[in-house]
């Protein structure tokens, strides 16, 4: 299998006044295509920062980030945006749907950046909603849907452009147990049946159980989990 994600001595620091805050330190990581990796760690350990670097919405202060065969380090803002639209699907804790758009229009958003016709965009968006079992709510606005349903719409939006990698930042963090299980089951299906590589940040060990591998971060450093089978390698 080829590496979907390759990180080589990746560092990330922020400047707060005169103080330099080291968030990630010398991260080496390879995640293979088709893997489902849970990223765990205490608050402030750098999980989301690492996810942002892999998703191409932030740049490291050192090291190399390579995702889906593209070296992201040094890419311009517009090149990164174009790359994200083709390769990455994002799922957020708070769904981040546009409240003024119906479910199907929210799902259609990433397709506005493609050359697909309006009809084809609509058809693909409806297909994505069918995959998450929400086709019957296509015309509902986010405010008319439950949290679990909104998250499923968000997953459909992440899927619709057929990205190779899904990055999920606490996708069940705002859901009740039942809805969380539904979402995790759905992510499992996408990984197993649709071959999507998934990286999921979570605090919840039960959520992490749905992943094939779990990585732990603490104080900006990646810890090797001896109990995990080989796959993701830190």
């Amino acid at each position, binding site marked *: 299998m080829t590496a979907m994600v390759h990180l080589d001595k990746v560092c990330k620091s922020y400047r707060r006044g005169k103080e330099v805050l080291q968030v990630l330190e010398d991260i080496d990581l390879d995640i293979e295509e088709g893997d489902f990796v849970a990223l765990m760690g205490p608050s402030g350990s750098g999980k989301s920062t690492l996810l*942002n670097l892999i*998703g191409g*919405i*932030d740049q490291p202060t050192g090291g190399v980030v390579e995702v889906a065969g593209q070296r992201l380090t040094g890419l311009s*803002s*517009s090149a990164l*945006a*174009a*790359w*994200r*639209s*083709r390769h990455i699907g*994002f799922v*957020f804790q*708070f769904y*981040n749907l*546009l*409240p*003024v*758009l119906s479910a199907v*229009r929210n799902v*259609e*958003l*990433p397709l*506005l*950046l493609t050359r697909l016709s*309006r009809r084809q*965009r*609509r058809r693909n968006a409806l297909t994505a909603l069918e995959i998450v079992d929400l086709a019957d709510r296509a015309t509902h606005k986010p405010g008319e849907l439950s949290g679990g349903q909104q998250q499923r719409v968000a997953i459909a*939006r992440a899927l619709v452009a057929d990205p190779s990698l899904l990055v999920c930042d606490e996708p069940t963090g705002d859901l009740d147990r039942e809805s969380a299980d539904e979402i995790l089951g759905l992510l499992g299906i996408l990984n197993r049946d649709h071959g999507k590589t998934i990286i999921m940040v979570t605090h919840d060990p039960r959520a992490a159980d749905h992943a094939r591998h779990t990585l732990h971060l603490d104080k900006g450093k990646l810890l090797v989990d001896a109990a995990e089978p080989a796959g993701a390698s830190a």
Partner: protein
Amino acid sequence: MSWFGLVWSNLFRHRVRTGLTLLSVLVAFLLFALLRNVIESFSGGLEVAGVDRLVTSPKYSIIDPLPLAHLNQIAAVDGVAAVTHANWFGGYYQENSNFFPKYPVEPREWFSMYPEYRIAPEQLEAFANTRTGAVVPASLAEEYGWSVGDRIPITADIYPRRDGSRLWEFDLVGTYTGPPGESEPVTFLFQYDYFDEAAQFGSGTVGWFVVRVVDPDAAAEVASRIDAAFENSLNPTRTSTEAEYQRQFASQIGDIGLMMSGILGAVFFTILLLTGNTMAQGLRERIPELAVLKTLGFSDTGVSLLVLAEAVLLFVVGGALGLGLGALATVALAPTLETVTGVFQLSWTTVALGFALAGLLGLAVGAVPALAARRLTIVDALREQ
């Protein structure tokens, strides 16, 4: 969904706020349409003015009259084909608000000078032969319900009668019309001889002369010769084309264009501030959403253009509604206002100018929020959630 659909949906996320903003833009453009009509009504008359006619008026002020005796001297100037005269009478019909221009004139000479005004020959004869006779534009007669044979009372505000009375009575002997396809005339005409005899003062004087030149190409030279003839007299003159004269007349009332432009400038500046503030507030509320769009792959430029397009769309829609309402208001107000301004219509120039202004205002209002949206970093914006 299209890009336009996305912009449209975002624009109407707060229906009340957008509705009120739209209303303020609408009112501004309604005002724009109506005030532009007024500005154009002053310049509109200038464009239809005859090129072979000159107007000789007092050199220093329209209030100073000119002696009627100038007429023969002007007629004798080389290059002059015909001369006639008029006075500004003022006055009103029944109520102050019923205002329209009224000139005492020489009937035959006046209609000979203005052949584009059409009057039945027998009515012109009646006008010439009736001392208290008057003719009015057909549209004015229709507006006030006058018919030939009616006696029309006019209350004078400048020229009382010799007996001290301010009530002048005229016998309506005919109506006249303007050239087809052009604006209707607005002036109430009556006999100069009657005015000259009955007015308490001003006998033997006129307000201005209208001069037809033999050769329009030599109009400037003829004008100079006329003014030169009276240069050292007690009543020096200034001769200009009809267009220039009307412009001078309007400027003595005030610089209409400047006043109107000043009002419009103040209105649009206020709209700019109010709408700019509303747009900025709307942007602050949507920072996480804009960050999500960027996360999905929308470029910095793409997101800033979305924000800019919302502002432009708001102004274009508000402008279109305002101009549309302005067109309806113009139709409704024209019968009343055309008696004062001559022409009162919404021109295509005003419509085009309105849309251009709407686009520019939209760009001005949207520029700062669009720049802020462009500079937004995804990580910082999502952290604010």
